[in-house]
């Protein structure tokens, strides 16, 4: 794990530029039509239709392979944006970003399984130290919620009852968009053991629902009906992390982390439209209203018995039972939040550097393997009597780059969501994530002249 950041300075600069361009192109290519949402594909879970979409939790490529969370994680090789207090742990200017492929097998009672797949952006994160390992800043762009579904239904309509003429059609119900979060945080180490941090987040996005009816007969007009809800608002998160050294042995470190996120009232504007492309008509007038997102609390613990092993456990709480919205949402009737329930996400995982003590191969020394799991009940359900839970097992590998501080992190998340009871759907999902984590020395004069 030893490396000299100055030695590879020149190459790193070029590499960072290349990676940044590459990731940005890759990240925005599938979202060219609506860059504001950064995700346009509509082949995700049907459960993402409800509320403001499926909650997304992404902190770092490292934590993602350990079940998520990581509120107490500390490392100079990965910046932990989940807890702004962790932004104090920085030596290098760091850029991280990645994409996820998600394959879902949907099943329902009495129906054939359906397989769908989508790809989307995990996050784009940039951070740099103001004072090495004491004060750091982070900027991140990541999804807060995601709406991505598509259900097609073929049908036959009698279009002329007198002649009993029938025409076949396909109705495609689609949802896309979600809420994005772009924020900047500041973390400071008050003492060698205590760090605190704050982060301001601008939440914005468009939640769209579309019903498109296409007739086989070209003499019939196809129809595209859509509702689009534009949301935006500001929130803030405060975080703290406390490190206790030599708990059970001389080498071990126990870290405790906690975060508190303020509730936020997103201002919303909803419009209904008909048509597509240049021939879009707005139906009626737009409807304005506020969507109140609840407060969130998080608590995490990380234990490192030595430099080989790291274990984490996290619990994140969001008070969705207090959710309010002036705009009706799928699963929510204005004034009645009975369909919403508090979200308590629990996760745990571990990381190991199995070759950390190998003196033969510097590359292998920095290869890490990760495992984890989580349970994540949804805050909203199509059926008030049936909670929709997600369970998942995660794993991953971190492959170090040629230059120090750089890694390619891959993770897999295999799990289930929902149930086939009560006419609902069960998703079996596999997510494969690829993340680039790149560190470079910026804003620092070379010491040798």
């Amino acid at each position, binding site marked *: 794990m030893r490396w000299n950041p100055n030695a590879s300075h020149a190459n790193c600069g070029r590499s960072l530029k290349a990676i940044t361009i590459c990731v940005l192109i890759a990240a925005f290519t599938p979202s060219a039509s609506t860059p504001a949402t950064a995700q346009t594909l509509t082949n995700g879970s049907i459960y993402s239709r409800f509320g403001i979409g499926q909650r997304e939790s992404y902190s770092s490529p490292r934590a993602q392979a350990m079940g998520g969370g990581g509120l107490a994680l500390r490392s100079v090789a990965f910046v932990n944006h989940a807890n702004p207090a962790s932004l104090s742990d920085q030596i290098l200017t760091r850029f991280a970003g990645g994409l996820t492929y998600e394959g879902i097998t949907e099943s329902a009672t009495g129906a054939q*399984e359906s397989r*769908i797949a989508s790809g989307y952006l995990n996050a784009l994160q940039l951070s740099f130290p103001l004072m090495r390992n004491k004060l750091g800043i982070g900027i991140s762009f990541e999804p807060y919620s995601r709406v991505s579904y598509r259900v097609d239904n073929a049908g036959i309509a009698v279009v002329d009852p007198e002649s009993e003429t029938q025409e076949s059609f396909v109705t495609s119900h689609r949802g896309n968009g979600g809420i994005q979060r772009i924020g900047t945080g500041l973390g400071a180490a008050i003492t060698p053991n205590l760090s605190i941090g704050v982060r301001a987040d601008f939440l914005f996005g468009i939640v769209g629902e579309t019903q498109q*009816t296409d007739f086989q007969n070209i003499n019939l*007009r196809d129809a595209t009906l859509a509702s689009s809800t534009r949301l935006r608002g500001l929130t803030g998160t405060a975080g703290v992390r406390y490190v206790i050294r030599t708990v059970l042995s001389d080498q071990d470190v126990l870290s405790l982390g906690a975060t508190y996120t303020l509730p936020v009232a997103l201002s919303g504007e909803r419009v209904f439209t008909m048509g597509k492309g240049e021939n879009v008509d707005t139906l009626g007038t737009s409807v304005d209203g506020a969507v109140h997102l609840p407060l969130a609390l998080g608590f995490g613990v990380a234990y490192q018995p030595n430099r080989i092993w790291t274990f984490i456990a996290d619990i994140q709480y969001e008070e969705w039972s207090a959710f309010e919205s002036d705009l009706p949402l799928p699963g929510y009737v204005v004034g009645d939040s009975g369909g919403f329930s508090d979200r308590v996400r629990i996760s745990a995982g571990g990381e190991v550097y199995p070759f950390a003590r190998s003196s033969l191969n510097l590359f292998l020394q920095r290869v890490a393997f990760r495992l984890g799991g989580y349970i994540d009940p949804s805050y909203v359900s199509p059926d008030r009597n049936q909670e929709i839970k997600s369970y998942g097992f995660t794993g991953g590998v971190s492959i170090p780059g040629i230059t120090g501080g750089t890694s390619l992190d891959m993770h897999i998340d295999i799990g289930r969501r929902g149930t086939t009871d009560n006419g609902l759907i069960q998703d079996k999902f596999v997510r494969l994530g690829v993340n680039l984590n790149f560190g470079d020395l910026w804003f620092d004069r070379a010491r040798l002249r």
Partner: protein
Amino acid sequence: MVSSRLRLLCSGIFLPIILVGCGDAPSNIGLGLVDVQAGEPFVVSLEPTSFETSSEADITGGFLTITNSIQRAGATRFLVGSTFDPALGTLAAEGRLNFVTLEAATDAFRNGQVSSAVLTMDLDYAYGDTLTPLTLRLSSILDDWSAAGVRSDTVMSIGEPIMEIEVDPTADLLEIELPGSWVSANNVLLRSESFSSDFRGFHLSQIDGNVVVGFAAASSFLRIAAAADTLRVDVDKVLTAIKRDASVTPAEFLLLQDGVDIIDVVHDFDTDEIINSSIHLAIFRLNTTLPSLVTPVGYYRPLLESVSLVAITGNEESRTVLDERDVDDDGILSFQSTNLNVAMQNTVLGRGDLVRFELQAPIEDNSLNVLFFERTPEAGGPRLLLTVTEVRQ
């Protein structure tokens, strides 16, 4: 070198993810969780709030512009004659026609003397008693007159009578040699460069007979011989004035008579059934009928075969032909077109300013042909069938 490797690495990792993510195999699983978003297509049948003969008469004026090809607007057939239809009352028609300029005239023609003028008219229509001849009066026209968009209830002033013409209603072509006195009197005018502005055409009215005949403007012309040259002068505009006595049509039917009637169809589109809906298909349908009418032997009363559906928008200024259809073998008239679909979609979205529909005979082939419509919904009166998807906001 490092950058190249990284680019290759990025391409190798991200592009497959994007491409695989674009995989598309949607199904209907989960349909029960989305069907509240909007409904399935269904048919709404709207009956008109008014289905009556318009106070406006049919358009019978028209003109032909002959350049590289013949361009037409409005009626291209003019009618003349009078007949007593025992079912519909007396129908009287007077027609007029005028001619294009003499641009093709040679110097010899312009400097010579007109020796003869022959009016050729292509008789291609008859309504009434075709067994007895028709006597017409050919007159000059003194005033300038317009044909574009002029309706059949126009009042015509005529000039001096030129001659009388005996017409066999079953003939195809009439060749009428104009009297020498008229030719002499108009010798200069018929050779003049200002012929088109100074000569105002001929007026035709009935003296005797029990039939109305029609002439095709495109194949009617005036042949003028001067010196050694003969010049054919084509018709450039026509107009027919038609009068019909009070119709005695049975009240349960609505008569559409070409050249005379236009039918107004008014709907109330401000109804919850369709407001803001998506229109997939619009069909406007009417049942025609053939009531038993008194028809003497040898009396010819042609039926109207085609009808146009016209949208009247704005301040009655904009007229758009949405569709033109033939009556089918079952006597049903069914309009269905992209223009009708778009017009209905615009209307339910509160734009387009559709005031009403009009039913009228195609203007070009002007005639007195008739069509009877059922009025009541039970008997197949007019109905607008709209296939819609309801928007649930």
